[in-house]
């Protein structure tokens, strides 16, 4: 997140809650074996350390200049096409960063995509609107858009009214956004972030105006609505990979590579577990996972 300053103090401030939260999560059970670590959570600690270690190692590799590949994601390739279409038609781009708080990973990913979209809008001089429901997401979204306009060398085009705060109520927010979509007819709608029951209402309204729509969420229950009403949909983890894909930032690419290795480890674990269970009837691989859950 580029809106977070990179000074040493800010790093300490960002790291402290991670450590506090991790230690408090580890200290939920009663049997403490030292250093505040609980016996039932040792396996979780090992996995946490292993997974973090793999990701950090890959980030290190990327920083040292190792070339990292990331596969094509159709929805993200269409971002520039959507902004280009808005520019040609002289209509605005609407970006809804979901209704979740800025603490949710989906919202953080949405803000990364927002920054990319805002940068292109600034370069092409295309009007942008980012309506918000959550107050903290609103603050972060405004910061991200402002920064994008600065980076694009067009701070003069940035206007605080481009990122309005509407209301905290889910359906009042939905009514306002659908109203805007129908009245102002944006040529491109981005519905990216954490969405719930309002997803179909928003996507349907946008679809009825003929706008090109790109959606993305990790909310499994809402994905079917986006798949049916939007031109492109970022499914689950594709959204998390979006910022790396768009920015091609080596550190972010390293993070994606690290996560893929973690996925491969989990996949391998499951396959070995299935083979061991089928051949010998032993549930050792399952038991190891369950023990990390304190079962």
């Amino acid at each position, binding site marked *: 997140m580029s*809106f977070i300053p990179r000074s040493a103090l800010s790093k300490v401030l960002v790291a402290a809650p991670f450590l506090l939260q991790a230690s408090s999560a580890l200290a939920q059970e009663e049997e403490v074996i030292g250093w505040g670590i609980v016996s039932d959570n040792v396996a979780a600690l090992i996995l946490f350390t292993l997974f973090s270690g793999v990701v950090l190692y890959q980030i290190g590799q990327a920083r040292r200049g190792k070339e990292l590949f990331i596969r094509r994601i159709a929805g993200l390739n269409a971002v520039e096409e959507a902004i280009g279409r808005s520019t040609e038609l002289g209509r605005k781009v609407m970006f809804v960063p979901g209704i979740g708080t800025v603490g949710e990973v989906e919202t953080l990913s949405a803000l990364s995509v927002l920054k990319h979209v805002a940068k292109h809008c600034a370069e092409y001089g295309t009007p942008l609107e980012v309506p918000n429901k959550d107050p*903290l997401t609103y603050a972060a979204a405004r910061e991200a858009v402002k920064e994008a306009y600065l980076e694009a060398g067009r701070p003069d085009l940035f206007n605080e009214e481009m990122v309005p705060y509407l209301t905290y109520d889910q359906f009042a927010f939905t009514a306002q956004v659908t109203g805007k979509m*129908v009245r102002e007819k944006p040529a491109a709608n981005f519905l990216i972030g954490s969405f719930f029951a309002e997803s179909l209402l928003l996507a349907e309204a946008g679809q009825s105006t003929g706008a090109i729509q790109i959606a993305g969420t990790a909310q499994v*229950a809402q994905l079917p*609505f986006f798949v049916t009403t939007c031109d492109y949909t970022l499914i689950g983890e594709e959204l998390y990979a979006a910022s790396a894909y768009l920015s091609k930032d080596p550190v972010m690419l390293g993070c994606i590579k690290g996560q893929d290795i973690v996925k491969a480890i989990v996949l391998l674990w499951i396959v070995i577990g299935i083979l061991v269970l*089928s051949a010998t009837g032993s549930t050792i691989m399952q038991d190891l996972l369950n023990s990390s859950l304190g079962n």
Partner: protein
Amino acid sequence: MHIFFAMAPLNTPDGFGIWVGAFFTLCILSFLYKDNPFFRFAESIFAGCSLGYYIGNTFSQTIVPNVLEPLVHDGHTPFISWGWWVLVIPIIIGVNLYTRYIPKIAWVARFSLAIYVGYYAALEMMLKLQGEVLPQSADTIISLVPRGTPMIDWFTSIVVMIGVLCVLVYFFFSAEHKGVLGGVSKVGVWFLMISFGAAFAYTIMGRISILIGRVVFLMGDWLGYGA
């Protein structure tokens, strides 16, 4: 069969509330035809009232019981007692967010955002690991040989196992989806689409029940149909 209507009375508080509710319900539903002044009126009232309600609600339900009352009534000694600092530090972090309205020190607000983001990212990480990744991985490990389990349960488990493995492969980003990887990820996409179809139908059923609730309100509470 007698069908009659007994509309809600306008001269009682409850009846008046029902009339207001019915009016706004119809205003919002009028959007199905097209955007119109009634919908815009209802939209603005809804947004304004909800925002006012949430500001009042947050103040009375969050700030008063969690900040003001403990600060005034719990007898903390300022600067000395630990409890006082526990209250004051979050207040400072919260108030700090408003520095963004003072251009010269607007950057200070970023510290509060950073703390908030860091805290919740860590919280989510542990919740996802312990609540989703590990339990699902453990449940996917099933025997390929049915050992006393009913055939239908065993078959369902096998389908779930294949689905989890193929979908997991689809979400590999650092390798081109070609050859075996491409084939497996294509099966993963099929699993995703089938699950989306099922979820779509399930959610639509829920939405229809919400619509039925509104129709029952209009027909029963407001128009008094069959009362």
